[in-house]
């Protein structure tokens, strides 16, 4: 009985449709390009030829093959290496500043430029009228 069950389970495991290698390659590359290589200078796992990066890429592939989503794979690495491992920081907590601050600074700069140009033209006009 147990043997029959084991054979049936093994057969089911073989029959279970997996992700085709070509699709898995693309997904691995996508996820690996969002993760930082820990032993490189600003390179992603995808771009780095280092041994550790290649081994980490294998872990990405394995986890995707097991059915994890790209976000779950990224969460696994963030849980081990910290958020530093994510090339694009999550938009939470203080990280929000990274996304919002540049927009505010650009808008503030534009307002300042408009304000100054208006002021200078007024002064120039006043000077010309005298």
């Amino acid at each position, binding site marked *: 009985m147990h043997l029959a069950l084991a054979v049936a389970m093994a057969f089911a495991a073989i029959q279970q449709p997996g992700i085709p290698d070509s699709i898995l390659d693309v997904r691995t590359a996508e996820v690996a390009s969002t993760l930082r290589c*820990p*032993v490189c200078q600003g390179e992603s796992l995808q771009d780095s030829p280092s*041994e*550790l990066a290649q*081994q*980490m890429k*294998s*872990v990405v592939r394995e986890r995707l093959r097991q059915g994890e989503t790209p976000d779950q794979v990224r969460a696994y690495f*963030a*849980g*081990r*290496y*910290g958020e*530093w491992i994510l090339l694009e920081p999550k938009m939470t907590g203080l990280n929000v500043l990274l996304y919002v601050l540049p927009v505010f600074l650009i808008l503030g700069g534009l307002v300042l430029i408009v304000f100054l140009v208006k002021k200078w033209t007024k002064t120039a006009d006043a000077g010309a009228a005298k």
Partner: protein
Amino acid sequence: MNWKRATVALIAVAPVIALFAFGFTRDPRTIPSPLPGHRAPPFTLAVLSPPTGKTTPSVGDTVRLSGLEGKVVVLNFFASWCLPCRAEHAALSETALRYADKPVQFLGVLYNDEPSAGLRWISDMGGMAYPALVDRESRTAIDYGLYGVPETFIIQTDGRVAHKEVGPVTHVLLQRVLDSLLAASKPAKGS
């Protein structure tokens, strides 16, 4: 002096100066690990060499973290090509001997290295007072968020990571952390 302009300029520049000042208080090479305080990732690793002068665990046996419950585990990642690993080897081996009669288990994990090179290195260093393990494909190293070697993780008796040391460990550091963990794990008198 136009005080209004000076105040506006100061308000605009102050946050930038504050940001730089904050940046100077931090070491850019230090990357905080999320592991301390959290459950140590489980591992099952094959023994590369038993502790020098002992026969158990023997080569090919496996060591599981789950099998070390109730002990403080000092997990040190090393490699034969790593120079700082040479510097810390004496501290690790000597401390392992000093704590041999206490519930402390030292383990060395060979990282990204040939087992033969690891064995040669252990022999060149005059032996290792604790078992050396092999981490195929660096799976355990990645599970522990390793950047390089040496890195040492000290796991407390309840299975949580108490301390992570990047770079060579010293006698003083090992003793301080181990003593505090052993003291904390002792049941209170009369309880």
